[in-house]
């Protein structure tokens, strides 16, 4: 399978008053084309920081210190890949929401309460697909059935032709500011709205024509989450990052959203990077799973392998700690707490809670080693860490 996204030795630190929080400690992972990759872990283990580093939207005291984020997009330099950490901010702006897009955890926080749903979804069309839309409008204007007044049509045609050639042209920006001439955008906005209605309908929202004129507070939680997904899917991305997309939703709504994601994966998008703390969701839709603990990736394997043949002690403990439908008897819990990342334990970060701690675990951090068919584990027990 072809690689889509690869992170190499990603290190992200947060410089807080209490000290440097070492949120990511050399995270290396690979997401293939056409897979759903699940990133699992407890809160504060660095799941969100990983994807935020990939998108380069780490918040203020945070800094990406080291590493590489390489994407292999379907463009001319396919084999070479692009290191996102080396690109300019302008390039990232173009990429975010277009090729790689993200669904955020809390739909209430992700949507702007003062803008209508239509405005928020069409924003990403207006930002990323201006050129395509202008070309489409020119085609519409020159089509034989067009009933616009002829001189006006010629004028609009000229403007849209120019816009289709260079959407960022200086003259167009001046036009946007001038009272009468700014009307040239009218058709553009209409076109964006048309596309918005289309995508909102595709996500299974009843009467989209009315919904696009409503505001976020008019909708329920599940609907809002659908709108957030619509924004992310607007420009048909190659990679969709879902950061706890279903965590705050009810069981029946969660089932709807998971169904939707599964359907979309088959139709529209190539890969999903799903962040969750719910192992049930992982078993449900993921193909490949990465387990994170305290800023380290400790095990990566196919979903069947993780559930049937977990190797890392943390993975095993995590699986035992989840209440199951069939299991009886006492739940096994993991003693202790997640360590503070300002001063993480030396060596393997899991060793204070691990039932099989050895001397070497306290001294050296284990390395990710291949321990089976497509199965990577970072643990000295499993023979990992030998140079």
């Amino acid at each position: 399978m072809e690689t889509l996204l690869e992170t190499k030795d990603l290190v992200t630190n947060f410089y807080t008053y209490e000290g440097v929080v070492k949120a990511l400690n050399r995270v290396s992972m690979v997401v293939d084309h056409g897979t759903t990759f699940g990133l699992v872990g407890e809160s504060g283990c660095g799941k969100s920081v990983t994807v935020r580093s990939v998108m380069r939207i780490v918040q203020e005291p945070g800094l990406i210190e080291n590493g590489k984020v390489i994407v292999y997009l379907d463009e001319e330099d396919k084999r070479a890949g692009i290191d996102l950490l080396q690109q300019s901010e302008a390039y990232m702006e173009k990429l975010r929401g277009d090729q790689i897009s993200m669904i955020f955890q809390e739909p209430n926080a992700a949507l702007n309460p003062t803008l209508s749903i239509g405005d928020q979804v069409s924003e990403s069309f207006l930002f990323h697909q201006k050129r395509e839309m202008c070309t489409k409008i020119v085609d519409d204007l020159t089509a034989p059935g067009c009933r616009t007044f002829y001189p006006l049509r010629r004028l609009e045609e000229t403007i849209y032709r120019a816009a289709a050639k260079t959407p960022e042209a200086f003259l167009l920006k001046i036009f946007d500011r001038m009272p009468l001439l700014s009307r040239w955008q009218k058709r553009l906005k209409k076109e964006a709205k048309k596309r918005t209605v289309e995508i909102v309908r595709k996500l299974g929202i009843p009467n989209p024509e009315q919904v696009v004129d409503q505001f976020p507070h008019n909708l329920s939680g599940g609907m809002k989450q659908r709108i957030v997904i619509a924004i992310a899917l607007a420009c048909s991305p190659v990679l969709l990052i879902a950061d706890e997309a279903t965590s705050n939703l009810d069981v029946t709504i969660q089932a709807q959203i998971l169904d939707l994601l599964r359907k979309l994966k088959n139709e529209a998008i190539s890969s999903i990077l799903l962040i969750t703390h719910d192992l049930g969701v992982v078993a449900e839709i993921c193909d490949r799973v990465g387990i994170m603990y305290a800023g380290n990736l400790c095990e990566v394997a196919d979903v069947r392998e993780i559930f049937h043949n977990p190797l890392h002690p943390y993975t095993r403990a995590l699986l035992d700690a989840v209440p199951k439908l069939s299991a009886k008897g006492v739940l096994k819990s993991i003693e202790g707490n997640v360590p503070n990342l300002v001063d993480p334990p030396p060596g393997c970060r899991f060793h204070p809670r691990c039932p099989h701690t050895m001397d070497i675990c306290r001294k050296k951090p284990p390395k990710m080693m291949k321990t089976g068919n497509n199965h990577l584990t970072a643990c000295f027990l499993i023979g990992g860490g030998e140079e």
Partner: protein
Amino acid sequence: MQKILELKKLKKYYPIRGGVFRREVNTVRALDCIDLDIYRGECLGVVGESGCGKTTTGKTIIRLQDPTSGSILYYGKDTEPGSGLDIGKAKRSTLKRRGIRSRLQMVFQDPATSLNPRMLAKHIIAEPIKAQIPMRGRELEDRVIELLKMVGLTRDHLLRYPHEFSGGQRQRIAVARAIATDPEFIVLDEPTSALDVSVQAQILNLLKSLQSRLGLTYLFVTHHLLVVKYISHRTAVMYLGKIVEIGDTGNIFKQPIHPYTHALLSGIPIPDVEHKQQRIVLSGDVPSPVNPPSGCRFHTRCPFTLDRCREQEPDLLEVENGHAAACHRHDEVEKLIYEKFGGSQAAA
């Protein structure tokens, strides 16, 4: 089995005020005619989607909120059967005189917000004791340390503020505070939903062991069905202010009756790869409790609606031994699901 609490036609409506004079323009029907018996020593799980009235049930039972109508009969340890005290209508002074407040306690959802950030752990735990019994000094401190040990903390934690604890430890303090006055009945309002998986297991095990040690009765409110399956003996499923199904947890999970319970159960993401269940995905959202649908409240989302469901509200009827459901078509649901969604559901 001995009843500890009996709810009869319990209603709780919240007014929506509007207009110039803040008059009542509408009501939210959070609880609408709930009948429920809670037996001594059991753990009753209450599940449902958000906004279905789970938390309101818990808060009304221990009278953190006054019910609109209906009664809550409480049978204490030494009262003879048949002479319960109606908590819902009793005066506050009566509640205090008879020490009801110390018998009924509550653990809240998010320990980060339910503990006062300006109080030390020892004061947080000592507060309910001091309110009930005149106890102070060394005696009080010994009692607090005993409670801390019960919930798995040590005397080192006495002089710390809530922010110095991790989420799991904070919830332990909240549990210690709830058991400080030797209660008989504790309402647990989503005690683990703010916690991580590994810590959640710790708290669940703690609650279980405390229950058997102290002979507590729990009302466990949660939206997480697997947690209910793990901890509770009986389960009540709520939908829009009504109990739609109640029964032994094993029965509910093995042979659900109400279509809503079927949908809820099939919607749980099971942490097991081999478990491929046919899923019943309900369309739409929970209707607003301001004007709930006529007839059966579930009819707007139910895949098997009849005309009768739209007009007539079903009663909670006992189908088999202790297992009751409110559905007009309760005897044919299994077959209908089998026909519509295929065999795997009926087999499971």
